[in-house]
């Protein structure tokens, strides 16, 4: 289902881009990769991260903040596997 190299699962990438677009966050995320930092680079604040948590949970059935505080996309991808 996932490409296990440093690619971001397509569905996850779509969710991140959706939350980013809906909240009109003024950062460029054209070159997202697994090391992209959720707050510093992508620009998510706590409310954006909460929305991301819900969207990811609805798609993958996993609460990404339940067991850890994800700092970058890789921290989310690890939990999806």
């Amino acid at each position, binding site marked *: 289902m996932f490409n296990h190299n440093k690619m971001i699962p397509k569905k996850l990438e779509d969710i991140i881009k959706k939350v980013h677009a809906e909240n009109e966050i003024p950062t460029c995320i054209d070159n997202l990769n697994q090391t992209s930092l959720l*707050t510093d680079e992508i620009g998510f604040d706590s409310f954006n991260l909460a929305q991301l948590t*819900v969207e990811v949970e609805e798609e993958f059935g996993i609460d990404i903040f339940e067991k850890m505080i994800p700092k970058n996309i890789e921290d989310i991808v690890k939990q999806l596997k």
Partner: protein
Amino acid sequence: MKFWIELDFEVTYQKLVGDINKEFVSTSSPGYNYFANLLKSLLRGYKVKSFDGLVYYLKNNADNLNFIIKTSGTTAAPKSIEVNLKNCIREVKYTKSNVNKVWGMGYPFGSYASTQVFFQALFNHDSIVYISGIKFSALGGVLHQNKITNLSCTPTFLSMMTIQLKKKYPSIKKITTGGEILTPNLINICKEHYPFAGFVNIYATTEVGSLLYSKNEVFKIPDKYRSQVKIKDSQIWVHKSLISQNKGIENSWFNTNDQVQFVNDEEFKIIGRTKGYLKTGGFRVSPKEIEEKISVIMGVTNVHVYGKKNSLLGTIICADIIGENLSKDLIKKNLYSMGLDKYKIPQIIRIVKQFEHLINGKKQLII
């Protein structure tokens, strides 16, 4: 009869530190010590000459000394609330240590929680660094540079800050949280970055002040409050002797509307608010207020705002909306243009065809 201190904290801080933008409140400031001594005198009921910028109406009965602070409240406009000084500082702890603490204040400036921390620091001659307005990515440096020993913030703030940290911060000895549910998971994660920190989780309300303390998410009523705090119908009730106002008192008791769930005979978790309020990221939100705002947007015919459990914010605000020619963007833009605070804008918005009303009155979503 009540007596008032007209206390504008912004003015007060300006007087104390000289510059509101300066983060560090120095204990060496003459104004700082003057203010501490002034408040102590007030509580003893002495008459004290007015401090420049502050207006005092003094009488000898310090029990009835009140002040007003402005909070975000449940509407978009800041709400002035009446606080009894004695209640506000009732739980101030005096420490015998000669080492002064440095508080990292993560609560918004002028909020009730920040006011309580201010008094705690003031009465112990500790210092405060205001970190609530600083970018999370810069906070690691601020913690280190100022050798912060005590953090005071909501669990959401703590999570957001900790996301950014790459090092350990051994200087932090205590983390005080409140306003939201503190999960065991967050405590465990924090132990990695603040290895020597103990946790204090506080249950406080604007009307009562700080009331219950815990090292985790489970509280119990302390012996000293056995006759003044009770759980009735799974809600926390407080006796009027602990309240500074008469509003909302029923037969000598005040209902906080905070709902609890018992984990054993004595201990309980606070699971949320009843009476139509949601808590998100430490903010209290009225779904009804948001529904009213959304309902006036052109094209909206019906709306249901509700909370959904969220591991980061405690509760996330969701809105299901029925109408024509609507989009999430349109709704959000309209809400922003109405001046609604960001925390009141639903993070999850769904445009739906209809709601289904159940027997218990709750609405169920049909997409």
